[in-house]
């Protein structure tokens, strides 16, 4: 297993390098620059600002400088937030996205797996139809609909929870955004688990476990569930990276200081360095979580060989 981890980490570096290269040139190919806006700068001031950040040099030279800086762990200054470095932006906001993402992941994982098992055990019965109907609805209804609806119900009408705000991550402020983030994941997870469970229940090892006279709960949890979770684990790698790096809509509706908002705002405002910093974090997370999901899959199913 250590060999696999070493090999994967070794191949991760060139992948990351390619991602950075592609993102760098795509970002620069977009029209406009970080210093153009509704209030335009006089050309001589704009030229001075461009020179300050080295944007007056040939693109390939800028690229070389950027790669060298990144190799030394320096992601540069934010071009939009003049008092902050990219490191500051990531440091100040990644924690919020992490808390939100992990909470949503745990809620979605626990609820989705429970619903998936329940549906599989009652296949083609009302409980199954109900779970699957909820799952389809969960996938189909976008977060920009669920978020305002939940706010309208629980915050504005019933006044049980705050409308928005982070407030240092207190529980009342977390419930609605976590619910909005978790709902589509619950839907997907329950469908994946249901499909996996139906398949594994028909397998020889589950039939053997039942023939041995094991109690139902043990057959389900010990024998049928672990292999049924493999598709879920493969799915959760990239899904996790998505959840942990924040969501524009949820952060905007609930006024949360997460990373997702900055990713989109920075792209629109051509804050090149912040966008690149986020791309690097996102790519590194995807690579790490994919490796983790492969390792978990191997742990769950002895038929998976790590080689």
């Amino acid at each position, binding site marked *: 297993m250590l060999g696999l981890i070493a090999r994967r980490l070794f191949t991760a570096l060139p992948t990351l390098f390619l991602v950075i290269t592609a993102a760098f040139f795509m970002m620069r190919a977009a029209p*406009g620059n970080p210093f153009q806006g509704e209030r335009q700068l006089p050309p001589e001031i704009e030229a001075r600002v461009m020179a300050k950040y080295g944007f007056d040099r040939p693109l390939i030279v800028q690229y070389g400088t950027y790669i060298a800086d990144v190799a030394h762990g320096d992601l540069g200054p934010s071009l939009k*937030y003049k008092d902050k470095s990219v490191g*500051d932006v990531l440091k100040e906001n990644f924690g919020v996205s992490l808390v939100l993402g*992990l*909470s949503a992941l745990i809620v979605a994982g626990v609820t989705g797996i429970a619903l998936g098992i329940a549906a599989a055990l009652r296949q083609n019965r009302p409980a199954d139809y109900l779970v699957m109907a909820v799952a389809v609805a969960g996938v189909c209804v976008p977060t920009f609909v669920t978020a305002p609806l939940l706010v309208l119900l629980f915050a504005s009408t019933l006044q049980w929870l705050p409308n*928005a705000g982070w407030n240092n991550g207190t529980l009342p402020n*977390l419930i609605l955004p976590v619910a909005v983030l978790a709902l589509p994941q619950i839907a997907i997870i329950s469908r994946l688990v249901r499909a996996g469970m139906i398949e594994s229940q028909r397998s020889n090892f589950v039939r053997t476990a039942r023939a041995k006279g094991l109690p139902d709960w043990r057959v389900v949890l010990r024998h049928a569930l672990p292999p049924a979770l493999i598709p879920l684990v493969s799915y959760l790698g990239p899904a996790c990276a998505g959840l942990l790096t924040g969501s524009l809509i949820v952060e*905007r509706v609930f006024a949360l200081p997460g990373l997702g908002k900055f990713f989109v705002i920075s792209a629109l405002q051509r804050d090149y360095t912040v966008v690149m910093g986020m791309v690097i974090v996102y790519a590194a997370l995807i690579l790490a979580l994919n490796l983790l999901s492969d390792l978990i899959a191997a742990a769950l199913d002895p038929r998976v060989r790590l080689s």
Partner: protein
Amino acid sequence: MRAAVLILAAMLVLVGCSPKGSTAACAPARTCLRMGNGADPATIDPQKINGVEEDNIVGSAMMGLTTEDVNGNVIPGIATRWETSPDGLIWTFHLRDAKWSDGFPVTADDFVFGLRRLLDPKTVAEYGYLLYFIRGAQAVNEGKAPLEALGVMALDAHTLQIKLLHPAPYLLQLTKHQTMYPAPRHIVERYGETWTKDHYVSDGPYVIQTWKLGDYIHATKNPLFFDANNVCIDDIYFYPISDSISAERRVRRGELDWNIDIQSNRIARLRKEIPDYVHTNTWLGTTYIAFNAQVASLKDKRVRHALSMAIDRDFMTKKLLRGGQSSAYSFTPPGVANYTPVQVPPWSSWPYEARQAEARRLLAAAGFGPGHPLKIEITHRNTPDPSLIMSAIQSDWTSIGVQVSLAPEEGQIAYQSYRSRAFQIADAGWIADYNDPKSFLDQLQSKTGTMNYGDYNNPAYDSLLDQADHENDIAKRAALLARAEALMLDDAPFVPIYFYVSKNLLNPNITGFGPNIADRHRIRWMCVKS
């Protein structure tokens, strides 16, 4: 059930792991103001800020030679009095005994330092050009003269002298503007450009304590501020909230006391439901469409007038936007200081059908009609209000036989097109930097460059503005500027559409909020009703 318990437990664990910091809740026995402030500031460095949101924050902490009263009028700030030379070219300001929040005295030298810092090419401040009427400012800013060549001098610790290139009756508007805030020399020289991170000091009513990007900025009352005894609010929390609907819910629920914006189409409803909360007022801004001077079909003045006449501005402001915006037939909004607004064109009061008929006649006279229709494209920003307005304009122009296509673009791309003149007709808006007609009319001077999108170039207009710059009598200056504007409107290099309106949603428990055209509301005047 077990799952629910597990979920709750997991969330509690995560909440326990959440980042800790100073709480955003108001401490007992303190008076707090929680304000929705649009977006995060790009910086809190007084010489580098350039946006409204930034000035709301930095303007609570910093104070210039003059400042605003509750209604936005100019009153003494760090300067207690001032005088001008008879020719209006030399201004002398006398400073009070004021202190920075760390106890150091605020001196005339801090103002000299702040202005030199703003204009120093190394600072790359974006707003230096506003002060080019100060002697030496342009040469210093362009790196052609040393900082000492700037016409600003500390005659002694309490006396500041500013020398101008031409009389500027709007100087007192600018001495309260962010470009002329002082800089704490003892701090900036010690800590360099990163002084705003951990060593922020201020000379105004508040001190910025914490900035959590995307979350909030916390400022507390400055006990060393010269008028601290009359400052009621102890703590201010500035929240960056770009979603005005979400902010509206939070104000209604009492989670926020004030939000600086209201979504236009919510205003009529809010006026019925919570009338005491809604504050709208004419603002120093105008939206317009610019004609590209290089497009052959738009070179004929009759075509431009026809297009202007055919726009049903009242429909847009009263039916589409419904936020209190008013129809614009001039560039300078009503109520601007040092000015008498120009006469609106007579056709603005005609019935719409009569305007359409006249527009068709003008187009026909210019050679356009059913057999040879005028074909044009409008490039516009793809944000909600411009998209709505441009669709209405498309409909208006189609009704007089013009074939119009729309080219919506993301803001950055639209501005790129405008700068490179890769458009036929462009939508744009302008918010004045200070309360004076010059801040509007300078946009259309031939020397303005890229922001004169239509490349308007009329030597008579330029000359009138130059004459106004050198006129020391305010009434005569206003007349010259009005003549210039009337001339420009007759040339119709662009079409004003509507005047902006400021839209504040404020809990009626907050007192000391005065409506004003600059939409500047200093929190030092506010209090919370017990």
